[in-house]
């Protein structure tokens, strides 16, 4: 018996197109050992994890889902840079057997970058249901790459996959003689010519032949790289040659698909013609302009119904029974110094604690989002709403995140990751804070009810619509004047519908909630404490505090919209969490004995009340939202822009509303 004590550690990268079940494979292999973060310098999710078995360890990296390896998007760039720079020991290409033809295109590209490739042919059961008979052995033989059929959702074939990976790395395996794609003689001449124009070593770490092809394919990133490295006098020759051969990009893609067709011919029997899959049947309704919209409304209705019938009551329950009680309890602890009581009760609990009570609401949104993504419905929703979103320079994929924003802006901003065009994504992120979230609507509802009684509902709805009108106008302005670039066209695959993988949905929801809790425990906590400090320094009384000072400083501005300094302070405190407006007013006005409603009525004219609602609903987003914007735009530039822009927008709109209302004396 041979002794094998030495532990073998290898790196494995999972590559694949979107909607192939790659995440499921990743989760099965790594379980809870996975770590979710971002790729360095990118707002693309990076998942890594570890698989261990009998002294064999695989560090698994889940590459972003991509259709190709030309830098059409950040995802594609990350995937190929990883393959080139990190050269993982084995690359597993996860393919969807039910749409093998499309998936083999990526294999055509992977072959050129990944020396040890294993193909995991997923969803082989779905393919069979569709009458597609695939022969993994012939595919494997033709490609000279191992092909392992798996059904990740049913945890079938994973063992075989793992042992194949292990085998690939064993010393004897060596590198396979993979059949590269034969590009016809015509295009080969063009590629060779570009290669000759390139200097040796100038393309490192990318292979020279590959670089030449990417240049011809119009890959912006490679183009920039080579341009930077080449002697300036030699660049024009290459550039003009590339321009002359612009059509090469099309030719190369066409040849790859022709290669794919040849592979298909050996590996798949033609399905019987005329079979209509379940997906196609559902889609006749789900993508119809009228029925599709109805279905979408029903789906969203169901989500919001769940949120308001379960999530919101839990949030209120937690707020009243946990946060408020805990605060009262802390104030009764006489052994604690006064400042510590205040710090815990009014700083930590009132700020970050209140934000945390929103976890149940967020749970429903995150879970619903993951469910829609996993079943494949998100793409249909995007398809149905595309025609409307087009009007403000967005496309269908922006709609769902914006709708989520009605619940909470944070998941909405995180949800914009589904938008593949960076420009459309940024635009969506920037207008999301103008979607009135539950927090803001709660404040609007309370104040509107206090002032206008039963008409308060109408006023609330009016304010909400006003905010959405602003969203459209701001969208149009940003689209035209602020964000540069061509508005991108919608082009997306409509994946086959899947039975949802509940484990995966649970995991994704859990990861999202965890990230939110981390945020509440760090940035939001810090801001809560700062605002609390501002409200007690110097003598513990909010009415003499620095915060009050700022409010008084802003009073002249406030007067333009009929607001006194207390209202300005209440507005500023909404920065921590939108609901804080009411709490702050409560604290500041608590001295005078009468209830909040009466005091508000004494303080404000109806015109001023409406102006306050306007400024409150358009005011700068809460800390959680700003931090989400920072995370998703990768810097402070756009959060700063949002804060300044919405400051100007909210004040000017409120002033306008107040002055017009006064002018007509109607309120």
């Amino acid at each position, binding site marked *: 018996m041979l002794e094998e004590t030495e532990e073998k550690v290898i790196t494995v990268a999972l590559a694949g197109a979107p909607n192939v079940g790659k995440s499921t494979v990743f989760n099965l292999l790594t379980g809870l050992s996975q770590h979710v973060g971002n790729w360095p310098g990118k707002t693309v999710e990076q998942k890594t994890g570890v698989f261990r078995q009998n002294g064999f360890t695989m560090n698994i990296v889940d590459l972003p889902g991509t259709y190709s390896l030309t830098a*059409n998007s950040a995802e594609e760039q990350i995937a190929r840079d990883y393959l080139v720079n990190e050269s993982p020991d084995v690359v597993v290409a996860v393919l969807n057997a039910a*749409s093998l033809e499309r998936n083999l295109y990526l294999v055509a590209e992977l072959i050129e970058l990944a020396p040890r490739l294993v193909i995991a042919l997923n969803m082989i059961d779905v393919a069979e249901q569709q009458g597609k008979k695939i022969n993994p052995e012939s595919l494997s033989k033709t490609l000279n790459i191992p092909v392992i059929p798996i059904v990740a959702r049913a945890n079938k074939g994973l063992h075989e996959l793992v042992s194949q990976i292990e085998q690939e790395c064993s010393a004897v395996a060596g590198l396979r003689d993979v059949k590269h794609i034969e590009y016809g003689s015509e295009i080969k001449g063009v590629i060779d010519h570009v290669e000759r124009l390139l200097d040796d070593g100038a393309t490192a770490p990318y292979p020279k032949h590959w670089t030449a092809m990417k240049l011809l394919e*119009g890959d912006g990133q490679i183009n920039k790289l080579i341009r930077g490295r080449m002697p300036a006098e030699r660049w024009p020759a290459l550039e003009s040659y590339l321009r002359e051969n612009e059509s090469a990009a099309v030719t190369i893609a066409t040849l790859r698909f022709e290669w794919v067709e040849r592979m298909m011919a050996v590996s798949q029997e033609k399905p019987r013609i005329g079979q209509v899959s379940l997906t196609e049947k559902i889609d006749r309704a789900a993508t119809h302009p009228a029925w599709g919209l109805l279905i979408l409304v029903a789906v969203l209705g169901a989500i919001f119904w769940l949120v308001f019938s379960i999530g919101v009551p839990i949030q209120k329950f937690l707020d009243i029974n946990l946060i408020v009680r805990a605060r009262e309890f802390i104030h009764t602890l006489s052994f604690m110094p006064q400042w510590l009581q205040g710090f815990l009760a009014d700083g930590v609990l009132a700020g970050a604690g209140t934000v945390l009570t929103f976890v149940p609401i967020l749970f429903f949104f995150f879970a619903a989002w993951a469910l829609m993504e996993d079943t494949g419905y998100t793409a249909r929703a995007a*398809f149905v709403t*595309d025609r409307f979103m087009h009007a403000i320079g967005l496309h269908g994929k922006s709609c769902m995140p914006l709708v989520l924003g009605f619940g909470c802006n944070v998941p909405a901003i995180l949800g914009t990751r589904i938008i593949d065009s960076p420009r459309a994504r940024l635009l969506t992120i920037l207008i999301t804070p103008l979607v009135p979230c539950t927090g803001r609507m709660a404040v609007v509802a309370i104040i509107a009810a206090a002032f206008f009684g039963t008409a308060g509902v109408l006023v609330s709805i009016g304010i909400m619509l006003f905010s959405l009108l602003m969203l459209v106008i701001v969208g149009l302005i940003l689209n035209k004047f602020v964000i540069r670039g061509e508005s991108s066209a919608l*082009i*997306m*695959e409509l994946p086959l519908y899947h039975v949802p993988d509940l484990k995966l949905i649970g995991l994704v929801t859990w990861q999202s909630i965890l990230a939110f809790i981390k945020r509440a425990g760090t940035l939001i906590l810090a801001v809560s404490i700062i605002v609390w400090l501002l409200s007690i320094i110097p003598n513990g009384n909010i009415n003499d505090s620095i915060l009050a000072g700022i409010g008084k400083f802003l009073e002249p501005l406030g007067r333009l919209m009929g607001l006194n300094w207390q209202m300005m302070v209440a507005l500023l405190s909404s920065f921590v969490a939108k609901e804080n407006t009411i709490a702050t007013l409560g604290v500041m006005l608590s001295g005078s004995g009468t209830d909040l409603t009466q005091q508000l009525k004494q303080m404000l004219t109806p015109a001023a009340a409406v102006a306050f609602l306007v400024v409150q609903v358009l005011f700068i987003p809460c800390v959680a939202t700003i931090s989400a914007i920072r995370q998703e735009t990768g810097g402070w530039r756009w959060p700063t822009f949002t804060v300044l822009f919405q400051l100007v927008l909210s004040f000017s709109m409120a002033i306008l509303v107040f002055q017009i209302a006064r002018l007509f004396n109607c309120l």
Partner: protein
Amino acid sequence: METERTEEYLEAIYKRQAKETPVSTSSLAADLGVSQPAVTDMLRTLDSKGLIDYKANKGAVLTHSGEERALAVIRRHRLWERFLTDVLGMKWDKVHEEACRLEHATSPDIEKGLSNILGDVDTCPHGHAIPDESGKIKREKTTALTEFHTHQKVRILAVDDEDPKILRAVEKIGLRPGAIVTILKRNKDGSLDIEYANKTIALNSGTAAVLTAELAPQESLTLEEEEIPLGKLRPGNTAIIKCYGGGRGSMGRCLSLGFTPGSAIKMIENFNRGPVLVKVHDTEVAIGRQLADKISVIRKEAAC
């Protein structure tokens, strides 16, 4: 041996009859590679058996029973050819000779077995019709490809030569019976320029001469080469992608999702406004209206 020779003769006469009736001794001698006197001898024998009607100086014509025998042999020959290519995976330039040997040793049971395995094939690999069990054959109206006019869209029916060299040449071009081609130019030396699968191919005179064809089906003739933007394609219709006219920005995405020239595309949903839904490379893809109008396609069939 005697039967085999009889069958060879009947087969040869049958094939010749499509070009000349009655069939002269000299052409038969050339086709079979034997001397003219030998042919004359054999034709007399066949005449006495009532298989052909032979008149010296004029030539031979198959009688009814002679034609039945000929068609039976041809059926077995072409079934074997099919079997050799489709089941055994042999190249189409090698199967003729093999089939020539096998056809004479084929019992009715084997013939039935072949026909069962092959299912409902109706031509040999080279495009010639296979007679059915009762000896009926779809009459082949053979028109040489060289006889069509410029701009005519035709369907290749068969390769009328068993010469392996010619078959290999045809295979290299990628032409197969059933291929739809358009004649672009007829040259004086008998060679042709044709368009096939969006590519221009030059056929030399030797290759062009052995191909037979018929006019492509009517509907594709009337809508021939109708180039429209993808956004104008009606639901249910299929088309071939011609070119992409948009900016370089969206091009990469379009290409990697399979919108390459020559790819078949089927319109699933098109409500004249908003995005369209198409099927390309076996997947449904949604494309915004603006982009759909930048992709031009060639419609393949009339609206149903």
